[in-house]
């Protein structure tokens, strides 16, 4: 018993010393920003520049709906000055972290907590009764909203406002960087639209509804979806109908993404006579996509190559 009590007391002493040590390390340090996705991390880094350090909790090729609640994520959040998430039911695993995070400022209602997707215009908002007969449906609408240029600008502006809240001294820098970022994003989207004009028939089959905002912005039409309902695996009948649709309507591309297993999408594309295109929905999810602008352009180039190549 005495051995146990001794161990318990020693553990408590270590715990008591940690806040003192942690506090001494915080002086004059940059604003620590933690985001759920690499896209948000890119926005925060672009706006914050050298005044911030930024890290994303989810890997760029990870399914952002289903991230493991790892102890390391809690440890990172416990040290954050600003936490940015999309919200809109995109990252349900975050709620388990927020229940346990010890840093009060990054909890809901805190000065360092931002749900960046709140102001976005959402597509595919379900109407009527919403229940799980519709699969893993999102009641507010499709949450993959950052690939739309207007939504991206709103998210960037929200991140800028949040950085100013936690670090008012950086206001001028943040506003200038935010404006520059929005200019770059608009320019990239204009370039992407110009690239896509080379394609006469821009219809695609999608794997999961991750790119509806990008497709809308680029003027692409979604002719079908491999998942019959969000998050539900397709049956043989559904896949057969898709293959027939691809063949009869001469649809040229099937779009998938690195976070999904591509076997099913590949077989649908090959058997239907279309090309498989892997797009990235997050910054850094594909080679050479270290920025939102590069991601948009790389996705567009891949689409154009596939759609032209199938001609």
């Amino acid at each position, binding site marked *: 018993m005495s051995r146990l009590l001794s161990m318990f007391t020693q553990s408590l002493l270590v715990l008591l010393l940690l806040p003192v040590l942690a506090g001494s390390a915080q002086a004059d340090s940059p604003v620590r920003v933690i985001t759920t996705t690499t896209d948000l991390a890119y926005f925060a880094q672009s706006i914050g520049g050298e005044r911030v350090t930024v890290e994303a909790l989810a890997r760029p090729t990870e399914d952002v709906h289903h991230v493991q609640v790892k102890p390391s994520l809690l440890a990172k959040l416990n040290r954050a000055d600003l936490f940015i998430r999309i919200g809109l039911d995109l990252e349900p695993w975050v709620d388990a972290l927020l229940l346990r995070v010890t840093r*009060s400022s990054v909890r809901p209602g805190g000065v360092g907590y931002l749900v960046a997707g709140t102001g976005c215009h959402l597509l595919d908002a379900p109407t009527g009764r919403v229940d799980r007969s519709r699969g893993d449906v999102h009641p507010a609408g499709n949450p993959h909203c950052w690939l739309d240029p207007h939504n991206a600008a709103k998210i960037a502006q929200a991140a800028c406002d949040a950085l100013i809240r936690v670090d008012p001294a950086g206001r001028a820098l943040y506003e200038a960087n935010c404006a520059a970022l929005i200019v770059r994003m608009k320019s990239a989207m204009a370039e992407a639209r110009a690239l896509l004009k080379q394609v006469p028939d821009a219809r695609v089959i999608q794997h999961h509804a991750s790119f509806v905002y990008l497709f809308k912005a680029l003027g692409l039409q979604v002719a079908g979806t491999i998942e019959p309902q969000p998050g539900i695996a397709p049956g043989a009948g559904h896949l057969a109908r898709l293959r027939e649709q691809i063949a009869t309507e001469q649809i040229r591309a099937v779009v998938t993404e690195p976070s999904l297993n591509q076997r099913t999408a590949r077989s649908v594309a090959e058997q239907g006579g279309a090309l498989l295109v892997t797009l990235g929905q997050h910054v850094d999810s594909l080679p050479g996509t270290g920025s939102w602008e590069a991601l948009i352009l790389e996705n567009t180039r891949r689409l154009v190559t596939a759609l032209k190549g199938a001609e």
Partner: protein
Amino acid sequence: MSLSHRGRLLAGSLAFLLALSGGVFADSEPAAEIPETLEARIDALEAELHRLRAELAELRAEGEATPSAPAARAASGSVFNPDLSINALTTLTFDSRDLSDARFGVDEIEVALSGVVDPFASYFASLVFRDDEVEIEEAYATLPHLISPLSLTLGRRLVPVGLWNPLHKHAWPLNNEPLVVQSFLGAPHLLGTGATFEGTWGADTAFTLLGGVATAVESSQFTEDGLEHPLWYARMQGFREQGTGGLQVGLNVLHGPVNPEATLGATTWGLDAKWRTGSAAQQNRTLLQAEYWRNERDGLLSNFSGQGAYLLAERQVAREWTLGGRIEFADDSFGAERTDRWSLAATWQPSEFQRWRLQLDQIDGRDEQVTLQSLFTLGPHPAHPF
């Protein structure tokens, strides 16, 4: 050490922690001035900034004119309701000793409520309907920054030691608990009512320390004869992030009296490790998990002394299919009553909210049991830890 001494130690520690926590809530240091090298760039962008501000103001006005669904929900007031989830487990069991004695029944229905109380606390409660009885399985408040950087949990909960015990039954990787958990912690869980302090530090490599005291609640060696003495427990855990998963190792200890006079006690030590990689979406999720527990009881009550361990492996082989297996043993009185078991399971999960698992267990090389378990989930349930 007497109980009053322990109480004073705990109260003193609490007071010290509370005093220290004041500094944590202090405002952060003001950031440094803008570097001079950036001023020229700022000037050049000012005109563009004015134009973009006007554009953003338009965008904002647009957004305000068409509120999103969450905003509409908030306006309705339903957003303040706690999250409610139901997990219904049903099991069909065949036993090789008597194949005619197939048992089919509702194993457990868990009704869980969770929500944020105020900016300082959240609450979780679960009612479990099991064997025609209703039990409050968990009911606890979490105060995550009352004494930052430690969180404090108060109430009744699954004692947070080891890997298996803190998991709700519907989250178990197999249909039944390991023999060693059954023998030395509790069946199906070790539950306790009390307080737990927990802290996590680090980054990609994270360390967690937790310690607590609780009155154990039924179905364990610490609750014989209606004992209400305090059970002390502690866990130290290290975690290393690896891609989408990681490796976790933990050391656990529990100590509590096992007779009404509190003159005899039991100490239970545990080591555990868990490695998880891959993701469900990529259809390559893999889990390896092991726990070793050693139980030592004072005096004549050595029939509960012993040790046991299990090794569990699970691999996702297709989008909806997972195969798993476990080998294990548990010794009471160090070998006098050793039980061995192996299990194989195939799990079919057509969606996030429905699961079917067929499992074969063989005990001591002769008795076999087959169970088919179904799980249906309604509503949002908080994500379980790694």
